[in-house]
């Protein structure tokens, strides 16, 4: 945590992890918005609660679907990318070359990537949420006219800090998990090309698994701490 800081590499990683994941995350969010909208409309109609559609969509997306879908998508794209990149550097002695140059490879390569994941996950989650709400509203409006303004007012009616910010910022923990696992898998690789493939696969699988398990703990934590 002491200087000198690798600002240049951090900015590069913020771009790589954040900006370049945005289209994929937005697309995933948009798709989830349609799915949740269709399912919510069908379920609420069965119980005569169609008026609750806006708030059910908003809460479902922001509290549950948005964060987990963003985490899983980023885990796949970024986790595999970091794992493969660092593994490739490991097997071609580039990480040894960095260390032999009296540069801390963990500070340069791992810390920057982990920090970038922690910072960008909440921002990507917000993007996914926005896309999901837009397409969710649109899917509903195609079937039954619903003004966007009415949708927003009804959906966010009675909303508080506890409802929306903690679920969004819990994705920083997802980012920590993705970054840590991918960097560990990559920088400890052995075995040439096979090792690189293994590192990429393990990064995605383990990050996704631990992300879901962490969500169990985080949801309970949020419900207790932010009732």
């Amino acid at each position, binding site marked *: 945590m002491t200087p*000198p800081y690798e600002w240049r590499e951090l900015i590069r990683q913020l771009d790589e992890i954040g900006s370049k994941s945005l289209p994929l995350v937005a697309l995933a969010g948009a798709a989830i918005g349609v799915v949740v909208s269709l399912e919510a409309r069908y379920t609420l109609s069965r119980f005569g609660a169609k008026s609750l559609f806006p708030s059910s969509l908003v809460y479902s997306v922001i509290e549950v679907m948005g964060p987990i879908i963003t985490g899983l998508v980023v885990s796949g794209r970024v986790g595999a990318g970091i794992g493969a990149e660092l593994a*490739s*550097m490991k097997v*071609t*002695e*580039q990480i*040894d*070359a*960095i*260390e*032999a*140059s*009296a*540069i*801390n490879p963990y500070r340069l390569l791992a810390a920057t990537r982990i920090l970038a994941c922690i910072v960008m996950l909440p921002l990507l989650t917000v993007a996914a949420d926005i896309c999901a709400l837009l397409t969710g509203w649109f899917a509903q409006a195609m079937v039954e006219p619903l003004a966007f303004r009415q949708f927003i007012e009804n959906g966010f009616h009675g909303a508080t800090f506890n409802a929306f910010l903690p679920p969004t910022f819990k994705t920083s923990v997802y980012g920590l998990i993705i970054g840590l696992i991918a960097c560990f898998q990559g920088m400890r690789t052995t075995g040439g090309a096979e090792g690189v493939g293994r590192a990429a696969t393990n990064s995605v699988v383990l990050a996704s698994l631990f992300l879901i398990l962490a969500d169990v703990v985080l949801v309970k934590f949020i419900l207790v701490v932010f009732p």
Partner: protein
Amino acid sequence: MTASPDTRMKTEEIGKEGRVAAIAVENLRKSFDALMVLNGITLRVEQGETLAVLGRSGTGKSVLLRIIIGLVQPDSGSIQIQGQSLSGLSVDELGVLRKKMGFLFQHAALYDSLTVAENVAFPLAHHRREMAKSERSDRVERLLAEVGMETSLDKMPSEISGGMQKRVGLARALALQPEILLLDEPTAGLDPISSREIDDLILKLQAEHHMASIVVTHDLFSAKTISNRLALLDQGNVVIEGTFEDLQQSDISFVSEFLQHP
């Protein structure tokens, strides 16, 4: 350019110049699981001298260099760099010593996401942050010109040949003006002409910079050309150490066999 033995300093002249060896390895041992790789190696390299370490594949030559640069920890023994022991050093203290050493990896280990110029500038960007960008660019161009790669600044490592990568690796190893140079199989995988070009380049750089160098190689011709002394390893031990003539005159059967079939 033909290699000239006269450009190398004589060992006795080197010994007179400094009392503290640039590199002093004492009774070094290293095993990987049940395999004993280094079994009590003792070597000494003076400033301005080049020691070639020879041996069959798998005899621990590269491991020796990795231990000296601190990438691998020995099981026992000591290493001193300009009188300072490597054992018990903090990361920062080890970093200070590493900045005095340049390391050429066997396959150059260039950073494949950076251009040739960015590779050479990498150590400067991290350790000479006070250096102006223009000054750093000038230094990079001078280093690449020194190794004959001045026209390849913007190329990626994947776009240049193995011999060219070794040249860029050498330039990068020299970026911080090291006093010690460690070369791991500098001619491995190269054709005979490229190998001789690398030998000539190493000789030129040694004459200009007077570094203490250890060259790990199984290229006997290269070792004879660029080094003042040679050390032949077998089964983790130094079988013989001396000039090429000493090796030729040795009556140790392994030495004779190695010289005939390197």
